[in-house]
């Protein structure tokens, strides 16, 4: 047997091994995705069934004649208006997302490009707030809002977002800015540009992916927030979708087809947002390089 033949055999064996390994990986991923999607599937299947079918069939069977009746009932319930919840969630999420994106970029610019007294210690302080349990500040801020007469308004849910937007977002944005070559702004400084010009003209236009990532994170965070609306909002007409769904649960304790229809309604905007924005996620995080 010649050397060449031996070599060919060996490569072939390696290739077969490689293909098998890939197939196994693929199989693991497929099985895993079933496990991850099963609850969502269950939710959808149950929301499309009539109560009679729900009682008669196993929960995960696909409905024989899918019906949108449940969604209609949910949307027209006068005691828990999902349309109102949707509006409230949108207002809060949009206001707080804009705040997070704008102010975290501003602050991140300061920490990544400008030198000022106490900057590095401040940055450590900023990072350490990530470790602070939210509950420590929640009780006194509740008292603060009480004196501002902000309880039962949307202010507590979005105004704080306009003050830096949280350590994680500032950090992400700063890391991203650090990756944009300094030569660009140094050239601009030589041309006599102000810092604000550099920020608006050079950094922001180059930070699209980071802005989108932070924006999507912020939107999802605000949309999903449960504790905040639970504590600050009292008027049932001011509830957000997330809290409204829980209220709805207490109204319709065992009507699963309706609860699931409500759940699907809460999930839809998140899924759409995710599908639209998913290509930014990994890219945005990779480029900022969380370390």
């Amino acid at each position, binding site marked *: 047997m010649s050397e060449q033949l031996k070599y060919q055999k060996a490569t072939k064996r390696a290739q077969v091994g490689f293909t098998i390994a890939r197939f196994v990986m693929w199989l693991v991923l497929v099985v895993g995705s079933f496990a991850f999607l099963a609850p969502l599937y269950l939710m959808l299947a149950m929301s499309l069934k009539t109560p009679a079918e729900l009682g008669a069939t196993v929960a995960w069977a696909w409905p024989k004649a899918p019906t949108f009746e449940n969604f209609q009932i949910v949307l027209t319930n006068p005691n828990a208006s999902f349309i109102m919840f949707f509006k409230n969630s949108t207002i809060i999420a949009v206001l707080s997302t804009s705040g997070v994106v704008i102010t975290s970029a501003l602050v991140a610019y300061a920490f990544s490009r400008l030198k000022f007294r106490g900057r590095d210690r401040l940055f450590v302080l900023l990072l350490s707030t*990530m*470790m602070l349990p939210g509950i*420590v500040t929640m009780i006194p801020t509740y008292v603060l809002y009480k004196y501002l007469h902000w309880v039962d*308004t949307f202010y507590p849910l979005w105004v704080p977002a306009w003050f830096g937007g949280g350590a994680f977002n500032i950090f992400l944005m700063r890391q991203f800015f650090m990756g944009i070559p300094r030569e660009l702004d140094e050239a601009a400084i030589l041309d006599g540009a102000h810092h604000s010009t550099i920020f608006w003209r050079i950094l922001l236009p180059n930070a699209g992916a980071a802005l989108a990532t932070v924006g999507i994170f912020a939107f999802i965070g605000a949309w999903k927030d449960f504790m905040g609306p639970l504590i600050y909002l*009292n008027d049932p007409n001011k509830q957000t979708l997330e809290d409204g769904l*829980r209220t709805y*649960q207490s109204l319709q304790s065992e009507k699963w087809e309706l609860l699931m229809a409500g759940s699907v309604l809460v999930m839809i905007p998140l899924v759409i947002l995710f599908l639209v924005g998913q290509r930014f996620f*990994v890219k945005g995080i990779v480029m900022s390089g969380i*370390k």
Partner: protein
Amino acid sequence: MCFGLMLVAGTALADGPVRLRFTVWDGDESLKILRGLVKKFESENPGITVSLENFDYALYHQKMLTQYAADSAPDVAMMDPQHFMALAKRKAIIPLNSLYESDPNFKIDDYYKEIVDVHSDGKELFVMPRDIAPMSMIYYNKRLFKEAGIPYPDGSWTWDFDVRPELKEKDFFWVMRQLTKIGEGNKIKQFGYAPAWPQLFTDCLMYSSGQRYVDDQKAPRRLNYNRPEVKKVFDFVVDLMNEKRWTPSALEVSSVLMSTTQQLFTQQKIAMFQSGIWEVPNMRKALKPGSKEFFDWDICLFPKFKDGTLATPSGGSGYSIFSSTKHKDAAWKLVKFMAGEPGMRAMAQAGIAQPAIKSLALSDCWIPNQSTPLEQQWPANRIATHNAVPFVIFNPPADYWPEVQSQIDGRVNNVYNDVMPVSEAMSQAQRDGTQRLSMLLREEDLPSFNWFYGLLVGLVLTLTVLGIVYWPERKVKYTLRERRESISGYKFAMPFLIGFLVFTLGPMMLSLVMSFLRWDMIIPAQLRGFGNYREALMEDPRFWISIKVTLLYSIISVPLGILAALGLALLLNQKVRGVSIFRAIYYLPSIGSAVAGALIMRKVFSPDGGLLNAVIYHPIVEKFTHLGTTMSHWVGKPNDQINWLGSEKTAMFAVVIMSLWGIGGSMVILLAGLQGVPPFYYEAATMDGASPWQKLRLITFPMLTPSLFFCLITGVIGAFQMFTQVFVLFNNTGGPNDSVLVYMIPLYNAAFMSLRMGYASALAWILFFIILFATFVNFRLNKLVYYEADTK
């Protein structure tokens, strides 16, 4: 544009002359009637508009307290005997005596004395009663009685701890046995009886056999759960549920039959169903005369004990006026309307609520006669509700009682969920309930607290932290350009600086000060010193339970989550077919709504027909692994499928599995970390003949340490603060036997249910130190791992 939205988002300004906010907790049916009543009231009282708001009962009383504390209380609110004292004591609701005494058309003597008394503090009335609700109504299915050849109950029946066959239909448990039908495979086809909730049945037996849970029904000072007579009743109930099976266990109803007992009654699977009169509208809806679901039914009273004692647990409700209202007269008009004839009549006709005015309860709006419309004929024997009134027993109305009650309920539910023997549950209920009771009864003489000093301390601490940041660099010389840059820096960082002061550092220091106080935001604060910390560490049994549970949860879920996320990230970093779809699938659940997620998880984990059990008890899986039977044995119920959320051994698993569903967040971060590894590292390693394992160990892991570390830190912090899932999954309790009582649940309840802001702040600070410590340990760990990898 932003400003426009701001205005939209803000509170609507009051318009019109008088606008009343009117809050209630009620079901869909009653709300419909209340809306009609509000319209009628508005047309009769021009110039007054009423906005009706509905809350769910579980959070209602908490919302009333916090709203009052935050100066945003409604004008008129629905109230009940168990909760009005907490508000009355803080002067949040006003006594109604002067209002009704000066009203010539109003006679308080028209009302049942029992419901008036229970809504007073002994001297003054705080809640104008709208209904009284004895909860010993037995709804019975006439058809099933006829089929079994048993005469309809006329209320003269009695009960004893043993069946007395010689008494026949005069013996309640004989009837129950006769009406229970067992089918093939020992499956129950028809239950003789079921209460709306298990405790209701126990209450009826307890009270009519002359036993009480507490020494004083108005203001309890001692508990009786350790008495043999009380245990005997519980033993009896458990025996009926689990051995004789004449009544379904709570578990059987909610998870096996996936229903409520009320639904089972209308489906004719239960012959007798016990509840209050408020079930009537649902019954009428389900059993329309002429429809194919229809069968004849009626109500009667729960039996007397053999010695002739009749006693019935009772509810009731009414309306209160908040002291913060600006329209006291209009509010009184509304109360008078709703808790007077117009309101009661409408409620009575719908069959929802028994009028609190005696003459109305005896009139034809409640008791049907020939002229009553057909659909309102059922139930015919409504006079039973009136006959029950002299025998009503209310839960203790004392303001401290709900907290003790919830402590006890946690233990007692273990009996109904069949996770603990009666004697053990009773002694725990006695022990923990007594502990809480004595803590709440203890009168502490505390000095009042001057906020000036508190704020001063907060200010000094805040300035100290800022000083530490600024001080070391104060003397660094800056050039003109640098100084300009420095000023710009502060300008750009301003949002963070202000936000940090106002929303983080300031509140933190304030909460530190608050942790030494007793304060409910209503009554002026008192200085409690280390009392809050002492209470948490030495007196509150739930504190240590919650610490244990939270640590356990973190220790299991965080490493497991990171490992799983790492595995996924490694797989998804390969060039596998359809990788971007896989990424989307695995990431999707982590962004999903937590409430919806928790809801669907109840279906995944349900014992019968749940998704998880369907997999592990599947014949194929069973054949190869015996996973299901092994698990069942381990839980202690070899014949049943696992009730994941109902068993104290598995509830934590369920919560951990649920947390694994959301690992997408860490996965993305690790994936990003993997993609950040420069490809030439691998190329060089391949040149040198490194194996895939070597590449993973010597390149990937060291390069990934920062991302892993980040996931670890945020994971631990998140795990310690887990709240929403348990809150939704277990309805703001600690689950079976407090096995998933995560730290945030008692903390939230202390702060916003009991308004104990000082104690809650102390709990928050303890949590802060635990997290700080955990993070510190993680940092040490990180150094270890990183350097080891570095030096090789």
